[in-house]
């Protein structure tokens, strides 16, 4: 039984996310980021940001909505019952602030098999309303028992 790799190179429509200050604060609370810059616009402005600024890992909040259509695409054919999130990489660029609109595009970079496991690697590229890249993500999902 070979692993189906047709979806390699496939891209999905970009998904936009409007960043609100409350959402940044809620996320900062959940992960324990205590800086007032994530909650208070004047604290963020004192530090040189346009508005309440998101912690780097807030990338998960604004890029995940674009990941859904990719990983649930029937053409990718991932077996969710046997899937685990195996690895994650982010690179950060322009900071993300309240009031930004972030667009994220996802591409299936590779589907490969090793030791009976399928490795599905997706790349997300997120840009703000000015076209500046805020983050690039590489998401690796591992599916057992494909060999």
């Amino acid at each position, binding site marked *: 039984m070979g692993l189906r790799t047709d979806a390699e190179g496939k891209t999905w429509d970009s998904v936009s996310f409007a960043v609100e200050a409350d*959402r940044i604060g*809620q*996320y900062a*609370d*959940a*992960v*324990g*980021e205590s*800086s007032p*810059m*994530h909650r208070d616009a004047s604290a963020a402005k004192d530090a040189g940001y346009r508005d309440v*600024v998101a*912690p*780097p*890992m807030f990338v*998960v*909040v604004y890029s*995940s*909505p674009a990941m859904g259509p990719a990983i649930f695409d029937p053409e990718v054919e991932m077996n969710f*019952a046997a899937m*685990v*999130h*195996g*690895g*994650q*990489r*982010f*690179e*950060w660029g322009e*900071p993300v602030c309240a009031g930004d609109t972030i667009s994220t595009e996802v591409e299936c970079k590779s589907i490969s098999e090793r030791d009976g496991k399928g490795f599905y690697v997706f790349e997300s590229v997120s840009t703000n309303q000015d076209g500046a890249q805020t983050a690039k993500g*590489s998401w690796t999902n591992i599916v057992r028992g494909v060999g």
Partner: protein
Amino acid sequence: MTASFEAGDSLPEMRVTPDAGLTKRYAEASGDPNPIHIDEEFAKKVGLPGCILHGLWSMAQVARAHGEAVGDPLALRRLEVQFRGMGFPEQEVSVTTSVTEADGGRIVTETEAAQGENRIIRNASAELAV
């Protein structure tokens, strides 16, 4: 922040214990609806000992440990991790980090997160602008 870092330095260890309600708060904050993190019965039905931590929450702890170590939560330029053992609520997570490269305004680290002997994030590396 004017602290300087050299290759071989350890960054301060960060310890945090996720409380029983954490996974629900993180699920809401992150938008991850997967029931294996928030529904004890569902988690057991699919063969887990109970609700497990979100890997991306654990990764966020590694990110936070770096930001706190250099005194700037926005210093992180890159973070890559592998998720291995499952993490569980109500057990202390410790993040340990050492500097592998330091030149001018840039440091590179190797880092991991563990609950006791259970290393939940390993082979991880970060780059920061300091």
